[in-house]
């Protein structure tokens, strides 16, 4: 007997409902699993996601790790700075996300406060590695800023600090110039470079997070510590120091020190490539640029900038010039660069924990970090082995790098750790509007308004 259409309807409805339920159930995902060691601790295949370090340092870390743990295979995937959060969130919400992922303090990329929910508590593993006094052996900047919801959500590989400029020493030498120490010298240097059709200073002011570095450096030059207090809400953003710093930032544009078209330029890749390809003699970058002082790092970066036959040049850090004429120069501010978190959904939690603790706490792992020069090591005992580091021009670079590392040891000022994403956006907006001609006082008032709104939102939560 043939089935009737009416008889088919309930079955059809049931099938549709079942398929839809399956689909919706799959989309909704399940509760996060309890964290427990899964798999062996000394073997497995891991994926590691991050926006930093570059492939070359990551390969160096993995290569050194394989010497210690040959049965754990680590595959690194470097995502873009701007695309990291977009890729990470759905990956972690699924069951096929990375085993190890990078997070950062405060409002940096992969903010730890937001992504700690997906990670395991790494404190027991560190305690096992370094003993009960483990906190005293690690830089506090890494432990404190990567602790969230009462757990050590990630292990810092090292820290980075901003506030410095980097110069192409070879270009300076070619035109008989010395690194500018104050604003007048900076203008003179730029005039000479312009006369020789060489770009002077480059910054990607369209990627606004980096503008914060420059303005914070200027503010510390005007009066040290005020910017940090403003970020912590202890000083209003309308403080004269901030207003003056914004005014000096504006002068960089008006006086032509900032390259033409800076507001349409990204720090990565535009400004970075422009400096690496020798088009500009100075760039605003921090300690993460130390890796390019090495022959290998410099060659890779120049090649990455599109230069066909890369020739390493002498890259040297210098203190931010004394724009305000106060003599307060050389301020550095930093955070843990990236921390390695272990995904609680990973099928290889034990092996992933082995990798994270090896890189973040072991003597061998941290020595590798120190020698690669991408980060200032998290383990206090680790320092670069200068005999192992192959610099482009050791006589010039080594003293400069040693001074930089000494200076960061004195730094107590955070970079992004205490600023929310909304405030960082507001600072970015203020930086571009001031550069376009808005009065510094007006921009400062806008910042204060944003800070009050941000504080109110935090109180609500």
């Amino acid at each position, binding site marked *: 007997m043939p089935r009737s259409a009416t008889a088919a309807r309930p079955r*059809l409805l049931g099938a549709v409902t079942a398929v839809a339920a399956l689909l919706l159930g799959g989309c909704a995902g399940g509760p996060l699993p309890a964290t427990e060691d899964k798999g062996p601790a000394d073997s497995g295949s891991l994926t590691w996601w991050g926006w930093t370090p570059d492939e070359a340092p990551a390969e160096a870390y993995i290569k050194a790790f394989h010497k210690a743990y040959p049965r754990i295979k680590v595959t690194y995937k470097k995502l873009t700075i701007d695309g990291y959060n977009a890729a990470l969130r759905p990956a972690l919400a699924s069951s096929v996300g990375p085993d190890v992922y990078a997070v950062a303090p405060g409002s940096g990329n992969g903010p730890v406060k*937001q992504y700690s929910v997906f990670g395991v508590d790494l404190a027991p593993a560190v305690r096992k590695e370094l003993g009960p006094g483990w906190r005293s052996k690690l830089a506090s900047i890494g432990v404190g800023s990567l602790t969230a919801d009462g757990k050590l959500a990630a292990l810092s590989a090292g820290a980075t600090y901003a506030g410095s400029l980097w110069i192409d020493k070879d270009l300076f030498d070619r035109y008989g110039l010395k690194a500018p120490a104050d604003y007048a010298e900076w203008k003179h240097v730029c005039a000479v470079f312009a006369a020789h059709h060489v770009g002077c200073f480059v910054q990607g002011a369209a990627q606004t997070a980096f503008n914060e570095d420059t303005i914070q450096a200027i503010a510390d030059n005007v009066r040290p510590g005020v910017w940090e207090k403003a970020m912590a809400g202890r000083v209003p953003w309308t403080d004269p120091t901030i207003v003056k710093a914004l005014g000096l930032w504006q002068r960089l544009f008006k006086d032509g020190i900032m390259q033409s078209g800076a507001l*349409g330029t990204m720090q990565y890749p535009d400004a970075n490539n422009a400096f690496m390809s020798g088009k500009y003699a100075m760039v605003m970058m921090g300690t993460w640029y130390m890796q390019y002082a090495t022959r290998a790092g410099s060659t890779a970066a120049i090649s990455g900038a599109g230069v066909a036959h890369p020739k390493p040049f002498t890259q040297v850090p210098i203190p931010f010039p004394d724009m305000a004429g106060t003599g307060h120069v050389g301020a550095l501010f930093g955070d843990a660069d990236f921390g390695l978190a272990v995904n609680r959904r990973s099928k290889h939690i034990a092996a992933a924990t082995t990798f994270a603790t090896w890189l973040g706490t072991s003597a061998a792992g941290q020595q590798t970090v120190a020698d690669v020069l991408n980060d200032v090591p998290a383990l206090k005992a680790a320092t670069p082995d200068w005999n192992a580091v192959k610099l482009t021009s050791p006589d010039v670079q080594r003293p400069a790098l040693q001074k930089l590392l000494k200076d960061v040891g004195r730094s107590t000022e955070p970079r992004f750790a205490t600023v929310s*994403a909304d405030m960082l*956006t507001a600072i970015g907006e203020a930086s*571009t509007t001031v550069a*376009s001609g808005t009065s510094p006082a007006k921009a400062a008032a806008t910042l204060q308004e944003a800070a009050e709104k941000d504080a109110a939102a935090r109180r*609500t939560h």
Partner: protein
Amino acid sequence: MTSTMFKARGPRTAHRVVAGGAGVRRRGVLPSGVPWIMPAFVLVVGLIYYAVVETGYLSTLDWDGTYPYPTHVGLSNYRAILHDPIFWKAIWHTAVFFVVTFVAQTFLGFLFASLLHSRIRLARLYKVLVFTPVVLAPATMAPVFRQMFAADGQVNWLLHHIGLGFAAQPWLAQSSTALPVIMFITVWQFTGITFVLYYAAIGQIDPQTLEAARIDGASNVRTLVSIVWPGVRGTTVALAMLGVIGALKTFDVPYLVTVGGPNYSTEFLGTYIYRISLPQAHVGYGAALSVLLLVLALLAALVIAGRARRERGDRRV
């Protein structure tokens, strides 16, 4: 004939046709078609409508996208949007973007299609040249345009070398020029689509009508304005609908070339939704913006379709 057609579908259907007449025939067709539409039906209901409903729910939350206990805030995200100057900027940019790109693409697409329907040498090459930008991924082209329109880029180099150095400027770094550059890139990229659709539509115009116009002594311009242009009105309406929806959804070119800046001068709803939802982690607010985008797209499509229907009605009268 009808009987033969349904017999081909199998004995069960044929039986109903014979037994039940026309009404039963309609009922009989439905189940036999269901297996064919099921995959698409499940896909649409399960993914698209689920996503729409889920987005509507998310728009009532204050949520960062990961925290397990989001706060329900009712309609306050929508209220906040109404007082959000960046939202209104994005709407304004969308409107300007739609008008300029639609007019430019329509003019150029219609012009190319008309010219290439005439006897012209190397017509095939021109067709390829006009259409090629359509198949280039914006992600691939964005770095090229960033370089071209940079302060030391090729556009300014060209201006200097043809004696127009006074017009050289940092195109992407100024609020006044960044949006026009984005619109220029869009016109360059998508005129090929407009051209192809007009080319096909012009091919559907009755040749006898064109011949009659020529016999009556109509010039080329008159033929274009009075015969061809009205003849492709349906295509123009469809392009307008696609254009307004495309403008509302614009994301890739402004995000990849200017990141919505400087000073939000190239911010569109798409770029704003991305920025607010991911870097700033206000997923609820971003969802509310997405819902508004959907509503605006539907309204625009309905308005354009309704207007086109009215015009068709007027013409029949």
